[in-house]
């Protein structure tokens, strides 16, 4: 098979890889904030339950979590596995990444000086105004480099979706490699992930620069 044909076939998986990437970010970034806030709750029971779940999500392979969410319902309650694998893939990725993001958010929130809370409290901001207007923008500025790190990992982790036969780029590469007994498809996939991440790094450093207008 000529190289150009390989690339053509693999490009059909491009939209699916992008779907995993963007949908995971869309759900996990806000979910991470909610998890972080629950984790920091003064309620001992809530914070410990969350702590436990986060430790499970961070302490077991994403691949295992993906298999559990895709096939778990069938083995547990006999619900047949849906043909559309996108839903379980997005659920597994979003929850897993939200767990990682939540710890980054928590570190960021805890690094904001107490004076920022006190000043906004005195001025009469309510709790949600205080968080959304005063605290969160400063948190995002501080944690952006760590978030970039996770996003770069996410680009590569999208390939894990091949374990449930979700036909993204890596799954296609593996199929072509098997049928053609060629290593070439994997090199093409590698180049693809590299370019994707170069774009991610570029846009994140632009975002970091854009937020650098003030000193902390």
């Amino acid at each position: 098979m000529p190289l150009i044909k390989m690339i053509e076939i693999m490009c059909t998986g491009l939209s699916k890889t992008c779907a995993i990437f963007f949908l995971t970010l869309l759900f996990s970034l806000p979910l991470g904030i909610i998890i972080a806030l629950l984790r920091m709750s003064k309620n001992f029971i809530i914070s410990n339950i969350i702590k436990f779940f986060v430790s499970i999500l961070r302490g077991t392979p994403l691949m295992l979590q993906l298999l559990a969410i895709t096939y778990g319902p069938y083995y547990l309650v006999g619900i047949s596995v849906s043909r559309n694998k996108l839903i379980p893939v997005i659920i597994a990725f979003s929850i897993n990444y939200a767990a990682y993001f939540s710890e980054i958010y928590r570190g960021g929130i805890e690094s904001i000086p107490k004076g920022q809370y006190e000043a906004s409290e005195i001025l009469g901001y309510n709790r949600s105004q205080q968080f959304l207007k005063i605290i969160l923008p400063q948190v995002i500025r501080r944690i952006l480099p760590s978030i970039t790190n996770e996003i770069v990992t996410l680009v590569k982790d999208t390939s894990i979706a091949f374990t449930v036969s979700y036909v993204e780029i890596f799954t296609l590469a593996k199929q072509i490699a098997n049928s053609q007994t060629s290593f070439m498809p994997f090199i093409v996939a590698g180049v693809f992930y590299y370019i994707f991440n170069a774009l991610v790094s570029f846009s994140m450093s632009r975002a970091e620069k854009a937020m650098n207008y003030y000193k902390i």
Partner: protein
Amino acid sequence: MNVLEMNNIKKSFGENNVLKDISLQVKKGEVVSIIGPSGGGKSTLLRCATLLEKIDGGEIKYMDEKVTYYDSKQKLCYNRNLNKFRKVFGLVFQNFNLFPHYTVLKNIIDAPVSVLTMDKQEATERALALLKKMDLSGKENLYPCELSGGMQQRVSIVRALAMQPDILFFDEPTSALDPELTGEVLKVIKQLAEEKMTMVIVTHEMAFAKAVSDRVIFMDGGVIVEQGKPEDVFENTENERTKQFLKTYYSNAY
């Protein structure tokens, strides 16, 4: 009328009784300075008055309205709507606590607009007028990190004033500043005193306290040791503890 009334306030952190039965009343237009050694409870008193710390016993009232009360079981309770009282007072912090991600103007107008629902145009005009008064014209679009400490503190005073408080608290407003910058901040506070702004100032600047206050309170060990007119406390005190404190203070000032 008393703007602020604190009666028999008690506050402890664990075993440490920081405020032991302290009472403080502040009349409209009065300027009260609180002096005393570190750890004497000055800042804690201010933090209790501004609701940043909860008292263990006693009573707080603003404009004759109770912030705290005792329920039928004699348990101390705070009024549910504390934001109502937060509109009555403002606080200027030792280390400014400006919002670093907002410009000077946004620091000043954001709370009036989003908390008091003031018209943005009106808030901006008022802010610019206050900035001009504080000798900060032209700084409105800068970020706090681009200003000197003295300017930052003056912006934080404007931010507090923009909420149109009935009483303004200062927690050691010049302690975080280089000596050459304290003057500009003290000048601004003095100007407010001349305009009959009700103020409570915790300070280590004795000459300033003497010049600006209607009443000076000397606090030590969680109690008010002595209070009175500035000349009585600074020059004619009979109290041994006050004498000792002032003596140490002046001998430390090279």
